[in-house]
């Protein structure tokens, strides 16, 4: 058996895991890994311009492909720059394997140059992490890392490898099987619980499905659809659940929660059964917990037992993989119709349409986003940042392409949109990828335009430029007496910026230019930045004020202004 270096062992394991891309930046502590790259031509290394982007790109790649995304960085600042991206993946349960070089093992703990205790730093934001101090442990560690990242509730795993361990030689033994006795995620739901769930569904008159990221992560699209159609249950998708159920389906109701559809928030408050599938009853979805779904029994299906009962009381918990549980549940579910209930929700919807766009001459952000959706065809992918543009993008997404809506949900990471779009385009080279950007978020990670142009990724960037940190402006306006502080945002000339990077740039300042600009961007073979100068003071509605219950959701600003009594404290 030939001897291999630690670095070769890592690469060999990555190759056997089927890794196609590594996003990263070299530095002193991971040079041995780079030294082996020519031996593994099947793995492409993408040199990003900041390690945060490496993590986000790998994160988005993982969301779209279902495989673990891989990023790496050198020790110290390289590793700490990954932290935001790792936390983002952790909050959204995305499988990520991060490999960091560490200072040589005899310098660990001595504050050596570019030393950071990255395993200590990332404990709360990784599913597992390792500091490998023996080259003979490397193969097993990498194998375990992929296993842990991709099974159960997925999440990021970090492996920290001192430079000397990367250089040491040993015999390579690939562990064909991974067996971690203390880690045996439950995937099959308990049959008794599944029977009880079927019984509750049969008894329900006003049932609702709340589908979350778990549906997308488990690729349980068909199973969810079967359940909804069989028992005639309307489906609401959380922000990260969007794309888990066909948007054009008659049972689809859109997003709930803080900026969700008014009818959904009311329906949740009136429902007698909530079926939470692969979601975690986040505060942005539930509003004030004690008033959440006051009339409903709750079935909660999730692969993570710790989510059961964490936020809401549950009548029937089912721990297991969403796809497996639904496959077992569906045959037990009695076919039913809930026409009166569906009609009732549609009546609320008619009275409170939530997402009508005023017919004005100004360029409204929601108008731009809706046009992008209309003109982009059924197979496009949409990546967003965080803030107002993200909420509009979520509200107006009624597409059918499964898993095609990629956004930073739990952590709410501004700047996600640029590197994540890159990750999606690498994963889906033939498909159209839109990055719907905030002008604030774009300026946080726009350095990655260099990477994108370098690799000729034909991503279309729509900067929803309202000259503000829009969501913060809205909160200062509503909850801090319109005392606007530090939200006006100077911005560069994005057209010139695009050209400086070698991309095409377009500017839109008038409503009639919106459609032609989108069409022009779609015709252009390379990356395009469209700078949409939109109405600066447009607020996002509906809105459930922070600390309020779903039933207190305000549908439209006029109503809100009349009804707005006292100042509501932010939470």
């Amino acid at each position, binding site marked *: 058996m030939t001897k291999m270096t630690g670095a070769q062992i890592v690469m060999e394991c990555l190759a056997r895991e089927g890794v196609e891309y590594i996003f990263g930046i070299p530095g002193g502590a991971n040079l041995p890994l780079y030294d082996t790259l020519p031996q593994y031509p099947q793995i492409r290394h993408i040199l990003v311009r900041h390690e945060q982007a490496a993590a986000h790109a790998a994160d988005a790649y993982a969301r779209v492909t279902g495989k673990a995304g891989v990023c790496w960085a050198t020790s110290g600042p390289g590793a700490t720059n990954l932290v935001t991206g790792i936390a983002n993946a952790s909050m959204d349960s995305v499988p990520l394997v991060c490999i960091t070089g560490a200072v040589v093992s005899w310098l660990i703990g001595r504050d050596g140059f570019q030393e950071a205790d990255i*395993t*200590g730093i990332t*404990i*709360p934001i990784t*599913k*597992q992490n390792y*500091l490998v101090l023996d080259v003979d442990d490397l193969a097993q560690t990498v194998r375990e890392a992929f296993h*842990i990242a991709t099974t159960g509730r997925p999440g990021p795993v970090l492996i920290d490898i001192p430079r000397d361990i990367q250089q040491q030689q040993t015999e390579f033994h690939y562990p064909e099987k991974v*067996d*971690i*006795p*203390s*880690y045996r995620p439950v995937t099959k739901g308990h049959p008794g619980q599944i029977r009880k769930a079927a019984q509750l569904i049969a008894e329900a008159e006003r049932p609702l499905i709340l589908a979350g990221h778990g549906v997308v992560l488990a690729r349980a699209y068909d199973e969810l659809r079967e359940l909804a159609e069989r028992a005639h249950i309307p489906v609401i998708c959380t922000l990260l659940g969007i794309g888990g159920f066909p948007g054009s389906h008659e049972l689809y109701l859109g997003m709930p929660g803080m900026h969700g559809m008014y009818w959904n928030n009311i329906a949740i408050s009136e429902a007698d059964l909530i079926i939470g599938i692969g979601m975690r009853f986040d505060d942005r979805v539930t509003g004030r917990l004690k008033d959440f779904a006051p009339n409903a029994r709750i079935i909660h299906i999730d692969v*993570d*037992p*710790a989510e*059961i*009962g*964490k936020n809401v009381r549950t009548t029937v918990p089912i721990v297991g993989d969403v796809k497996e549980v639904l496959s077992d549940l569906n045959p037990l579910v009695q076919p039913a119709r809930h026409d009166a209930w569906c009609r009732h929700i549609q009546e609320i919807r008619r009275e409170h349409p939530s997402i009508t766009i005023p017919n004005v001459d100004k360029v409204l952000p929601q108008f731009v986003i809706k046009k992008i959706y209309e003109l982009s065809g059924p197979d496009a992918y949409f990546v967003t940042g965080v803030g107002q543009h993200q909420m509009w993008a979520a509200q107006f997404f009624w597409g059918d392409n499964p898993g095609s809506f990629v956004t930073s949900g739990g952590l709410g990471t501004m700047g996600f949109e640029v590197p994540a779009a890159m990750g999606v385009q690498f994963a889906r080279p033939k498909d159209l990828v839109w990055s719907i950007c905030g002008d604030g978020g774009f300026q946080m990670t726009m350095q990655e335009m260099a990477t994108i142009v370098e690799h000729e990724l034909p991503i279309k960037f729509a900067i929803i430029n309202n000259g503000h940190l829009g969501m913060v402006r809205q909160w200062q306006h509503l909850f801090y007496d319109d005392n606007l502080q530090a939200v006006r945002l100077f911005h560069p000339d994005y057209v010139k910026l695009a050209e400086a990077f070698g991309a095409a740039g377009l500017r839109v300042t008038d409503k009639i230019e919106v459609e032609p600009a989108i069409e022009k961007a779609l015709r252009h073979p390379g990356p395009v930045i469209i700078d949409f100068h939109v109405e600066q003071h447009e607020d996002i509605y509906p809105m459930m004020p922070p600390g309020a219950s779903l039933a207190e959701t305000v549908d439209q600003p006029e109503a809100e202004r009349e009804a707005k009594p006292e100042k509501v404290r932010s939470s």
Partner: protein
Amino acid sequence: MTKHTIVALVEDRPGVLNRIASKWRQRGFNIESLAVGHSEMAGLSRMTFTVDGTTTDVDQVTKQMYKLIEVVKVTDLTEHDMVHRELALVKVAANPQQRSAIIEIVDIFRAKIVDVAPESLIIEVTGTEDKIDAIFEMLRPYGIKELVRTGRIAMTRGAAAPTSVDGGKGEHHRYRPAGEGKPKVGSLL
């Protein structure tokens, strides 16, 4: 019952205690005492800790701990018939005139004197927290110089071993009974 006694079986690997403590801190769990040491299986440590059930969701403590890869088993012994003990060392001021009175207290509590010096004694006492509190109060008038307590350790009565892997049969290949080969890594820190 507000005080919960929980026993966790965890792998002896560097950083594990850090992970567990980090989880408790992150989730705001109010942990009152913690005692850790090797278990009957090489490579596994057993920790006993107590949680105040009025301020902390004990169910979440268990579930969150299971999310840690190295945590093998978590058992809430509160509802079990269990034996629980704490050990304390008390250094008490004692001149020759006071010694016999202190020895009387030590005898009543079935404690032990483990060190004698001209002006002090070290008393070793084992028992429930109440018993240790009681002897502490009795000794206080003489002048307590130092007190150190281990925190509660606990075990269920009877033959069953609910806190062990496979109920104590030790069938799993990765874990060997203590003494059969040395553990690969023996530190939780």
